């Protein structure tokens, strides 16, 4: 089990620091003793199943919610108390937010730009969020994905130091999603720190410098996606097809029976081997004359595998406690 406390600090300046943060709604503990740091200019992802407390944490970081215990420091300020400083430097795109129905995209961005002392160029923001062609479309006539992009535009038009995005890609079509991911990378390139929550592990792997996996209100793992995959006893899956009469005894000699499976299909036997060294399997298959394997596929372990494992472990632990 990884230590759920973030002990890293120092190389880059910490812009967000959570120390022992807990949050309860009535008697229900939603966030339990969470600590981590976010460094300036990094993309930090909060991953977790529904109800894990991601939105609560993000909203606490921008001061929309007060915490029951612990402290949050954002750019050295306390989000709930120092509202003027926080709102000037930190923007959020909440998961559920509504804009003015009958204002166009351009008017909406103009309005939100006017709240900031040195806003970005509205036309440029429309281009960045891919809504330049909808500049004069009313918010209520935008699709769900376009509305979400407009909310991202609202979050960045004030040129904040930190942008907090709560599941920004939810409901976006693949094209829009790719363009949003490009936008987030662009924010990082311009020096903006990005915190975001997502259910999409591929997205987190592609984008994030570091991620925290939240389950049951606690941080179960924290690190870069690659680190987490490595730390998770990473395995790969090698799948191939052989003729029905193939001698597969070499698999029995090398692997525990739980590491591979055989299933008979119409054109032979489909074999799936789980291994930490897929290259060795491939070598054997290639050089064994009596094995005419084909239709190879190798699937590397991913952050999603690790995530599912961590969440399952956390759920089991919670059940045990009950």
């Amino acid at each position: 089990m990884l230590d759920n406390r973030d002990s890293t600090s120092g190389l880059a300046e910490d812009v967000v620091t959570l120390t022992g943060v807990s949050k309860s709604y009535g008697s229900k503990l939603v966030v339990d003793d969470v600590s981590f740091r976010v460094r300036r200019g990094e993309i930090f992802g909060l991953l977790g199943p529904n109800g894990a407390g991601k939105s609560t944490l993000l909203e606490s970081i921008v001061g929309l919610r007060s915490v029951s215990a612990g402290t949050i420091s954002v750019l050295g300020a306390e989000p709930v108390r120092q509202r003027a400083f926080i709102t000037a430097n930190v923007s959020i795109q909440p998961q559920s937010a509504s804009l003015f129905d009958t204002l166009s995209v351009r008017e909406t961005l103009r309005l939100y730009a006017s709240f900031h002392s040195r806003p970005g160029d509205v036309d440029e923001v429309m281009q960045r969020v891919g809504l330049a062609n909808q500049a004069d479309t009313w918010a209520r006539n935008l699709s769900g994905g376009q509305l979400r992009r407009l909310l991202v535009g609202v979050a960045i038009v004030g040129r904040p130091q930190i942008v907090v995005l709560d599941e920004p890609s939810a409901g976006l079509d693949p094209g829009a999603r790719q363009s949003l991911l490009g936008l987030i990378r662009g924010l990082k390139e311009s020096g903006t720190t990005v915190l975001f929550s997502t259910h999409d592990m591929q997205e987190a792997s592609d984008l994030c410098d570091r991620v925290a996996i939240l389950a049951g209100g606690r941080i179960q793992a924290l690190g870069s996606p690659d680190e987490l995959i490595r730390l998770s006893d990473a395995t790969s899956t090698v799948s191939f097809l052989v003729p029905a009469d193939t001698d597969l005894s070499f698999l029995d000699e090398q692997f525990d029976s739980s590491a591979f499976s055989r299933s008979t299909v119409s054109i032979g036997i489909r074999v799936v081997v789980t291994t930490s060294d897929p290259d060795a399997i491939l070598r054997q298959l290639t050089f064994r004359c009596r094995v005419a394997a084909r239709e190879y596929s190798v699937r590397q372990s991913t952050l999603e595998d690790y995530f599912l494992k961590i969440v399952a472990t956390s759920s089991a632990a919670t059940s045990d406690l009950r």
Partner: protein
Amino acid sequence: MTTSRATTPRVRSAFYELSASNARELYRNKKGSFSILFMFFFLLLLIVGLNFAVNDGNRPEPIVAVTGAAAGMTPLLVTLDSRGVEATSARITGEENATINVNDNHAAVVLTGQDPPRWIPLVEAIEASGIPYANIAVQDESGFAQVDLLRANLPAVAAIGFMAIAFMGTAVPLVSLRQRGTLRLLGTTPVKKLTFIAAQTPVRFASGMVVALLVSVISIAMGYVSVVGLARLTATFLLGLLMFFAFAYLLASRSRNAELINHISAVIPVLALFASGEVFPKQILPEPVLVALNVLPTTWFAQAAGTDLSGTTPFIDVYLLWAMMLAVTIGVALLAARIFVWDDRDR
């Protein structure tokens, strides 16, 4: 899908952009704009129609006998004559259908005969001769008082119009924005609450001015108000409108239930109207009730407006009523700004 490559104009101040956005929202939401002014126009047309039906339609022209103190009779006879009203200084022909008794700067009009005549022109003439409206009483032969419904109810109609703009047109949309999460998002920006609240006012204030202008035009056309009275009435309207806005902001400062605020907004004008003393004659109300009603700010507005529109006498001087309205407006507005929340969840 709309396509536009036009360059966005320079972004102005938060107050300007918020005010402009409010105006656009109101203009583009036809149903909302209509509902804001509907109550005012509905009541105004109702009262005008009723007044015409009760006091004017199909009534014969007045033939008047003027009696009483000689000092008051001559100018009145001249005025009546100049307005084309047939009038004599005493009952002569027996065809008279109204008598006006002038005494000590007071006038009593009695409508006689089976077909009582149009009497509002008589009151206008009496008022023009120098007798204040408040000193003119009109009744039929049985002693039943005749009321100029339009003149008596204009202050109430104006108050209803202002309250509809303030409560239905301001409080309800504000709470609706909170309920939908729009205020929550605004709360994450540097915009100040006071700026946001103040920016709600210009477009609604303009709607209020439409109401005020219409009431003023009617008052001038009907001869209810003098030039001096019009200036005072305008000040009363301005203060009243601001006061109602302050109460609307207070009502909207914390709630997240737009439906509840909608119901309250529909009931408040009616309650305020009945409580203002403009519906029930004061004579039928017991003294403690009168005192209680006089404590209500809506009564202050109705009484101040009634002084110039209906010629009624307020329970205290109009200027004192203004001072009280101003004090309440400032106090309530500050309170509203203080307790206003972008979103009251988890606070």
